[in-house]
């Protein structure tokens, strides 16, 4: 028997959603570029990432998105009187894996702490987090910038539990009541805090992109921003270029989409520059990004004065990373995206761009590589991806994951081409058919089984025809211009409606011209 959901009274200011917050300042006018150029932004990102463990951080409830409200709950995550947390070892494993993948130093002994504050979706009145002894510190991520690769520092990575959700809308009495869904309560999180090393919205975007990519490769999270499994707050300040001291920062909350990270930061940087330019002072505060209106709003809460009264969590012993756990984690460590791209470029002679595409997810890269390695000529698989697949996906606005042709299908096609069983024209036709019917390559091939002319006499007859029709080119060839052979191959292929066996055709053309 679990407590019934009870509606709460009218929310006060802390509970208000963005739309309900009164405008606290006029819309920022565009600041002239020459003024903007005088300033430099200093940005640090705080990223919360939900871990993909089967169960929650401190209880046995399913860690699952989208269940009916208040169903994935138990005495522990509901914070019922007398219930105690027990740490999920898998969450420790995942957090440690993420720490190592982000080049952090992991503590042998870290301490959980209680972060105290009242909020209806925080059932214990405190969040179990880590404070002065976090799991990991001193990491970094490398990001590409116009000036070359830049290293962004990671101050710390710590473990904590997620809170529930306050539902302000969608109920008949939502005007006066707030409802609480505690399913998310106790979901394991890692919080990754960057150094204030980021200088532009582009760098922030790149940092987030690399961070997401690395975490996806480790498999510790699905990093789905729409479902809230990756959430980002940004600390932003501005200063005159060349200044030593940081300006006063504002915290921009709720930047929960890759699409908006640049816009939110650009807006906030301009807002602060405008304040300073007009002789004002930036106020240290939390500001909420509103994507619909493309601006940030002051949350005007007492947040700044918040004293979380952290102290060590007495219900949990210090987290000691055993040698066994560390070994397990090292075993789980995959080849990370940057290293993998470098290797793939060398191994398959693909472009940087294609390496980027093929490593969009770890599973895709795995599929590609296992297909390529099983194929007779791995480079041909890479070639087909570059020459045939990506252009068709692009034309249809599809992601690689949505392709009808799987990596195995491409390997199948590559082998046929390698064996000379398909001409490039036939290959192109089959790719088109697959994209039209949505079938994989082998199925289309089985159905259409393109005809091939493998009778030497029939091919020779067509070669004779082409030679007779092109005496000028024959002369060129025989005059030493051997590359003209390709012209004859092409013409015969055309004549055969693409059905001549390419290997045989090549052989016979040379023979005829030389003979």
């Amino acid at each position, binding site marked *: 028997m679990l*407590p019934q959901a009870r509606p709460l*009274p009218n929310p006060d200011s*802390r509970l208000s959603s963005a739309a309900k917050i009164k405008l606290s300042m006029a819309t920022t006018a565009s600041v002239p570029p020459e003024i903007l150029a005088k300033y430099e932004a200093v940005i640090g990102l705080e990223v919360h990432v939900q871990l993909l463990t089967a169960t929650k951080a401190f209880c046995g409830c399913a860690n699952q998105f989208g269940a009916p409200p208040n169903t994935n709950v138990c005495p522990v995550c*509901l914070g019922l009187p*007398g219930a105690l947390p027990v740490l999920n070892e898998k969450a420790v494993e995942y957090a440690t894996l993420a720490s190592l993948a982000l080049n952090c130093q992991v503590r042998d002994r870290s301490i959980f702490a209680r972060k105290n504050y009242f909020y209806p979706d925080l*059932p*214990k009145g405190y969040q179990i987090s880590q404070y002065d002894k976090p799991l990991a510190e001193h990491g970094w991520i490398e990001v590409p910038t116009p000036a070359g690769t830049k290293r962004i520092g990671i101050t710390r990575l710590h473990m904590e539990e997620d809170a529930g959700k306050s539902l302000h809308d969608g109920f008949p009495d939502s005007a006066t009541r*707030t409802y609480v869904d505690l399913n998310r309560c106790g979901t394991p999180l890692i919080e990754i805090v960057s150094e204030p090393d980021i200088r532009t919205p582009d760098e922030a975007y790149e940092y987030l992109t690399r961070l997401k990519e690395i975490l996806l490769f480790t498999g510790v999270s699905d990093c789905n921003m729409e479902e809230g499994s990756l959430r980002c707050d940004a600390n932003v300040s501005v200063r005159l270029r060349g200044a030593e001291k940081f300006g006063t920062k504002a915290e921009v909350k709720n930047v929960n989409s890759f699409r908006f990270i640049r816009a939110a930061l650009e807006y906030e940087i301009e807002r602060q520059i405008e304040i300073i330019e007009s002789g004002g002072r930036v106020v240290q505060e939390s500001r909420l990004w509103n994507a619909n209106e493309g601006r940030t709003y002051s949350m005007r809460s007492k947040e700044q004065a918040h004293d979380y009264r952290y102290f060590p969590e007495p219900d949990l*012993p210090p987290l000691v990373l055993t040698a066994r756990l560390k070994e397990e984690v090292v075993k789980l460590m995959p080849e990370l995206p940057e290293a993998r791209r470098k290797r793939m470029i060398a191994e398959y002679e693909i472009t940087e761009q294609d390496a980027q595409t093929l490593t969009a997810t770890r599973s895709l890269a795995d599929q590609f590589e296992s297909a390529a390695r099983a194929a007779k000529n791995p480079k041909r698989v890479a070639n087909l991806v570059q020459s045939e697949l990506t252009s068709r996906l692009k034309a249809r606005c599809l992601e690689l994951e949505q392709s009808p042709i799987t990596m195995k299908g491409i390997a199948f096609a590559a082998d046929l081409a390698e064996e000379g069983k398909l001409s490039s024209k036939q290959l192109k036709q089959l790719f088109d058919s697959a994209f039209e019917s949505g079938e994989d390559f082998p199925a289309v091939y089985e159905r259409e089984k393109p005809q091939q002319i493998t009778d030497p006499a029939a091919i020779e007859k067509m070669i004779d025809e082409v030679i007779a029709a092109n005496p000028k080119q024959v002369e060129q060839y025989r005059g030493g211009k051997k590359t003209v052979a390709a012209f004859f191959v092409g013409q015969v292929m055309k004549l055969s409606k693409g059905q001549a066996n390419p290997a045989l055709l090549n052989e016979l053309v040379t023979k005829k011209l030389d003979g």
Partner: protein
Amino acid sequence: MTVETAVSRPLSIAEVRRSIESGSSKASELAAAAYEQIHARDPQIHAYLSLNPERALEQARRIDDLAAKGGPLPPLAGVPVGIKDVLTIEGLPATAGSKILEGYTAPYTATSVRKLEEAGAIILGKINCDEFAMGSSNENSAYGPVHNPHALDRVPGGSSGGSAAAVAAGMAVATLGTDTGGSIRQPASFCGVVGVLPTYGRVSRYGLIAFASSLDRVGPFASNVRDAAITLGVIAGHDPMDATSSPRPVPDYTADLDKGVAGLKLGVPAEYFAEGLDAEVRAAVEKTIEQLRASGAEIKPISLPHTRYAIPTYYVIATAEASANLARFDGVRYGFRAKDANTLSAMYRRSRDLGFGPEVKRRIMLGTYALSAGYYDAYYKKAQQVRRLLTDDFLKAFAEVDAILTPTAPTPAFKLGEKTDDPVSMYLADIYTVTASLAGICGVSVPCGKSGEGLPIGLQILGKHFHEAMTLRVAQAVESLQGEQ
């Protein structure tokens, strides 16, 4: 001088077992008799907050069925017990002595209680205590105070006053209490029963409504040392639901009970016999120490030099943890919610203002202050450092002695209302017990005499971590000495 009393010795666990095994009584008859005793005595004592006779008689019938089939009986088969109302039992109220949990029904059972039930104990009901186990007199219960069966105008001690009084009045063979700074030992002393403080981590805290998580322990009360040892053996052990519970195996706590004290080294710390100790308590304790010496124990004077810092240290740590532990009582999900609140913050403030009693609010404020930015280092951090020193005092002492003997409380039971206006003098009632709480070590309070007015006096026996068997062995020797008088 006539003092109204309601003392009555309950059956022992062995007597319960013998009568069920021999067929002379059924478990259901014993349970019914226990309820009769409660109906006769509890109107004066007020130890029970709620009774669950149907559930208890159902449990008793299962024992009777088992006995009828001649099946082996579990260790506490048919033993009527009461549970301090800070421990949860599925389907039963759990008030923690507070108005803020009035009407709350627990959806799961505390591990210690589950173990009692699995051992065949019959749960009679939930027992009165100070609100959220905060108090030394049981006067902080939102449901009214408990009266000491030895003198109804006196307090039973606290916070587990009801658990001690129920055993003293024969209204349970054993009870569970909790001890954060002395809440088992001090009421045991005031009510003339045996109370055990197990080592921190020895008994699961799962289902114990937390006061101060690093100090809270669950332990048994009984009318004699053997029953306390048996009950402790049942509830002790590792619990996967409590990350602070110890995986150490649980020994048979009755095995060494009768070995006596000959050859044991028993330490007597000078700091516990200083100013503030009642003369009659001192006399009773010192007399017992002499008797133990006569029984062959080597009595060694020892020093626990940081003792004088124990009370402030305890009150900083306990209140700091309490301020966080009690944050969940916010009116959002369960328990009391103020009706007249129209905003969220008003709901929090009104619900907590009306739901908590004054001592609880005082401690929440003290603890919040101690953890606040700018004060943390001076209070909480400093207190943790002193806690380490206090623990080291004990570890050094236990390098030389097998157990330590002190008075349990500085005085016998005081009168109801005597200290309610003076929180500091109330806090000093814990002066001899908070040290062991801070150090995480184990202890027992065992009756060692009576005052001129007939009020019980308790001797506290402290042992090193996980040496419950040693403290119980000494306690058994003390109990035997009482019998000889």
